[in-house]
């Protein structure tokens, strides 16, 4: 079996005295979209923040392409090829849209290639292109989400971490966002998607994990999970 792109083994994370992750294990294969679904406070964002190096695990390992990365600082992890579009979009509202994009390629030194990626990202998100000179704080929620994803792509990641890209957006925009997630994946980027919108997430994902209070409750093929009774009841709102 080939080594997965991202492998998390028995991960424990604490916020002070609070035990947030109780031994989470998951794997993201090369070229896949893997989704991590679950309720508020289940530990989805905590998992992503630990992968990005914003949090240090108290136990367990995070392997990227077979090499351990847990405990390394976030700015080094970006350079390894993992970019995150954070929860709440994390737009720099005091910078212009263009400057936000430039922040995405902060870690890169290949200017010409970065300029090409910028064009590619803007082709993917035409709405962002229309607003390049604007202050990023003036964008609507949907536009901010598109900017956040375009910005993450500017790092030319091999693994893209998306934290709740559909949060607080109108259904139509959610549709667009998920269509683009598919396109990004089709172009060769592996994606780990954290979502509360389980329905949409299971539709685009290859594999899925269900997180419940810091533990993996279920895992499997996304389509199988979407059909399973437990998931339908708890997350898809089907009685």
């Amino acid at each position: 079996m080939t080594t997965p792109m991202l492998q998390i083994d028995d991960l424990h994370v604490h916020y002070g005295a609070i035990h947030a992750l109780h031994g989470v294990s998951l794997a993201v294969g090369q070229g896949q979209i893997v989704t991590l679904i679950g309720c508020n406070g289940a530990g989805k964002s905590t998992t992503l923040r630990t992968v990005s190096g914003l949090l240090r695990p108290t136990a367990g390992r995070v392997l990227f392409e077979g090499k351990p990365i847990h405990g390394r600082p976030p700015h080094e992890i970006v350079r390894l090829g993992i970019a995150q579009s954070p929860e709440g979009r994390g737009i720099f509202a005091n910078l212009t849209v263009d400057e936000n994009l430039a922040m995405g390629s902060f870690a890169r030194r290949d200017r010409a290639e970065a300029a090409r990626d910028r064009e590619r990202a803007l082709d993917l998100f035409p709405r962002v292109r229309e607003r390049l000179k604007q202050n990023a704080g003036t964008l609507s929620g949907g536009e901010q989400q598109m900017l956040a994803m375009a910005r993450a792509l500017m790092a030319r990641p091999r693994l893209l971490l998306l934290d709740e890209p559909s949060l607080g957006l109108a259904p139509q925009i959610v549709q667009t966002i998920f269509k683009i997630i598919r396109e990004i994946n089709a172009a060769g980027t592996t994606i780990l998607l954290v979502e509360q919108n389980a329905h949409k997430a299971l539709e685009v994902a290859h594999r899925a994990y269900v997180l419940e209070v810091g533990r993996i409750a279920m895992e499997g093929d996304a389509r199988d999970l979407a059909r399973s009774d437990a998931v339908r009841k708890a997350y898809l709102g089907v009685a």
Partner: protein
Amino acid sequence: MDGVAVGSLYALIALGYTMVYGILQFINFAHGDVFVLGAWVSFAAAGAVGLSVGDQTAVPAWLVWLLGAVSAGALAAALYEFVLRPRLGAGRPPATRLTWPLAGVSVVGWGTLLLLVATRGVVAGGSHTIAGGMILVLAMSTCGLVGFCLERLAYKPLRSAPRLNVLITAIGVSLLLQNLGQLEWMFGTRPDRMPTLVPDTVLFRIGHVPVRLVDVMVVATALVLMVLLDWLVFRTKMGRAMRAVSFSPTNAALMGVDVDKVISFTFVLGSVLAAAAGFLYGQKYPGLNQTAAAGWVLLGLKAFVAAVIGGIGNIRGAMLGGLLIGLLEFFAVQYVPEGASLRDIFVFGALILVLLVRPSGVLGKAVTEKV
């Protein structure tokens, strides 16, 4: 003209307050003391190039040179590494491998240059312009180094501590700097006289206001530095990173920004500007008080007021605030009866007024939480 000159110095100092606040949301109360240190290092450096009036400091000349050369080298390397190199663009080896050799090269380079001027200064009485430039660079880089060390030793360990702890630490650092400067082997407890580098001539008059050469020098130097800073913050990659960190350190880290480096860089920048202000202040008012004198503290405080009036965290606001405060102060001295003894009242009165009417400062934006 005094108002413009002193105002531009307030602006230089205020920039340090406002930049650190913008990034760490805390007031670095030791910043005013870095300004004082800048003035005294200039004095020591002037002594070392052989320019002095009356007393010498106890600081041996070779120590001044060594410190200056090392820190100037490091500063040059840092500026090259963080500001210029990213602009030069592609196809260069990664940062860390180049930094140290580069620092070495510039240390040697600066060292030789400084020695050259030193000899010239001693032998021929020296070219005052070059000597002045050297003293300025030396004061700036020494204080830059001090700023770097302060942040690393005093503030960085408290990064996750409550804000009040950091504030108290800043006051402690301030007292430490004030009292260190009083030690006999540093600058001593007696006031000294800074050698002036330009003759005291009146260049021309605007109305009946005389414009002196020293005023022009102070304003021009301050202006150049502020334009450079503005360029750095708004036009370079490092400046973009600074602004990103000031908005959200976490998200900046996710972009690949080494937040600690940006914070250190900010402290160094602020200290460098404060040191320049210290040097220029010594040229304008050559009587240097001992480092813990109340007058110094007041100057630092007024610069802080300038930062608040301009809008704390706002770089262009700090520049404007500095000028406003300087002008207000000297207009009061000139036109209000008994104004000279009431000048501070006007400055702090303006602070109260601004806080009442427009608490976020002249150029500051009201902080609104967007949900």
